């Protein structure tokens, strides 16, 4: 079996591609479906997919209870996110510029399938680069503070990644990331935020704007393969699949997506995402790209990272998956930093005490 075939055969991926098979699957398969979904924080998304397919009543009772629990948990996470967004809205009351919602917050507020059952910990917004300082000032005044408080990390974010470090609300602990571009710092071409804002649409009855469907999809693809540590981004592949499946309803989406990707110099990334989403999750987008397996070293490494874990206790940290994740992380930073700096950075990360992460966070 090829790498791709192995992952396709994994219970979680099979269940996603063919939800009706979950009704007749045996005990161990169902256990693995639920387990792999849990491990990737995808339980809520899977549960909603099964609900949409009208299969809930036919599910094995134990499995159904697990899916019900996931729906309950995801609903609460969504409530928390809504509340945190209201806090951000209040903080930006005096800011008259455009603010776009990205990723989870966008999917949720746009009522997209990709947002249903999604567990997320961060709120991501996009503003014009020129307005970054104003927005930063406003949220700090309203109680957010920079999460990475040591000078090394601050410098890392601002100078090497040209990003604002992540913010954390002083009281709620909610995470906020303020972006001025959707392209990762490693790319050769910077995607001008003005272009994205120009194509954005207002969210009805709210102060927020949303990326166009094409830009939203491209962002998901970019985020899938480039942003920071890739391990744990399996969830983003499922988001991407949800997006293209939903937007497929408009026949012009596929060609528009392709054209926009070419224009933003994200064609190769889109290709990779489409091929992966198709081969692993059966998601298709007519007119956006040819289907067929993804090739190349990156694809191989990414598939390794996407391999769901097994319930058996993990013995050693150096599994194939961890090595692949590490290699991808190195690769994503390779172009950002001179080699010596990269070496030092990695050493620092290795010996830093791990900070606890919130549910839904990668």
């Amino acid at each position: 079996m090829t790498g791709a075939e192995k992952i396709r055969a994994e219970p979680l991926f099979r269940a996603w591609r063919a939800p009706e098979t979950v009704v007749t699957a045996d005990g161990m398969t169902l256990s693995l479906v639920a387990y792999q979904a849990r491990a990737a924080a995808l339980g809520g998304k899977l549960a909603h997919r099964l609900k949409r397919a009208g299969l809930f009543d036919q599910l094995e009772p134990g499995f159904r209870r697990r899916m019900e629990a996931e729906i309950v948990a995801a609903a609460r996470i969504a409530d928390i996110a809504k509340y945190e967004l209201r806090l951000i809205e209040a903080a930006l009351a005096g800011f008259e510029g455009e603010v776009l919602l990205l990723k989870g917050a966008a999917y949720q507020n746009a009522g997209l399938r990709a947002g249903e059952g999604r567990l997320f910990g961060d709120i991501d917004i996009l503003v014009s680069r020129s307005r970054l300082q104003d927005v930063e000032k406003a949220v700090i005044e309203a109680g957010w503070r920079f999460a990475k408080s040591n000078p090394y990390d601050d410098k890392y974010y601002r100078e090497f990644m040209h990003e604002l470090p992540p913010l954390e609300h002083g009281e709620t602990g909610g995470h906020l990331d303020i972006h001025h571009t959707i392209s990762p710092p490693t790319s050769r071409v910077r995607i001008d935020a003005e272009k994205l804002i120009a194509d954005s649409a207002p969210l009805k009855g709210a102060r927020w704007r949303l990326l166009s469907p094409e830009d939203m999809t491209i962002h998901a693809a970019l985020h899938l393969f480039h942003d920071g540590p890739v391990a744990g981004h399996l969830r983003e592949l499922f988001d991407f699949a949800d997006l293209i499946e939903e937007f497929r309803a408009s026949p012009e989406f596929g060609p528009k997506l392709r054209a926009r990707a070419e224009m933003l110099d994200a064609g190769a990334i889109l290709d990779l995402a489409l091929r992966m989403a198709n081969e692993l999750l059966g998601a298709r987008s007519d007119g956006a790209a040819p289907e067929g397996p993804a090739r190349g070293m990156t694809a191989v490494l990414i598939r390794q990272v996407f391999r769901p874990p097994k319930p058996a206790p993990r013995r050693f940290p150096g599994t194939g998956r961890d090595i692949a994740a590490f290699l991808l992380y190195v690769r994503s930073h390779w172009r950002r930093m001179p080699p010596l700096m990269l070496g030092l950075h990695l050493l620092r990360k290795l010996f830093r005490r791990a900070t606890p992460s919130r549910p839904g966070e990668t």
Partner: protein
Amino acid sequence: MILSEFGFENFREYARRGSAALALGPFNVSIRTDIDSCLESLFELYRHNEVVSDGFIDVFMAAMSRMRPGQPWRRRAFIYIDGQFDVAMAPERLATPALEWSLNLAIATRAHEYLLLHGAALEKNGRALIMPAPPGSGKSTLAAELCLRGWRLFSDEFCLVQPETGRVRPFPRPISLKNRSIDILRDKAPARVASQVFDGTAKGRVGYFLPDAQSIARQREPAPPALIVLPQWRENGECRIDPLAQTDAYGLLVTNAINADFHGVEGFRLLVGAARRTSAYKISYGQSEDAVSAVESLAANEANCEADR
């Protein structure tokens, strides 16, 4: 087939492979371990529980013998939930209590299809008694004593409340007894206290009171809550029964609600409903027999009042 019929050798073989699963209340739990002392005590603790073959597994638990980092002569039990270790590590001989505690954690963080309350629950005559109480209140010992008086054990740790019906679902597990209680119960009912006692845990000596076969056999039968009791044990204390107002009952429930925030408004309504439809009492006591008699009379009274309503 229940575990005692399945046999220790089979259990051992399956547990080493990670294929041993037991039905614990509504949950099917896979247990993997390579620690023999742990296997022996688990075999005793869960002797009446059904062995699950080819069923759906809710959570994968493991207690594995590993070298203590930096001390190769010391063996530790590493506890894994769903293959992840960041739960607990204990001396190998304390693997069973560590596993039991970790299983509680696993359920508390997963079972959001229920409203989870921290506390003991038992049933008699189709009505559930809930004892939402902090550690040290004596609820576990009281629960064990009530079991000896014919109450069906639902749990000494978790009340599983079904959101749709408001009924409590059984999750009968061995009751963990501490220090003196182990000896007291062993004197009263030697066959009901497990042979292995675990010394030197964070809580002192830990022993387990075994649920009876009936409680396990009927573990799929829920019951509506009718009585809420807050036990307060005090050395040489007099026995007193104080009725609690509905608001106090609600306060007691919400303070002990593990995942109330997951159930939002519906959860609030559920707890208010429970406070309204039950009678609540605080029982202060020094002798457990007094508390047991008090509970029995309150339960009987509750039944009579219901008949009158």
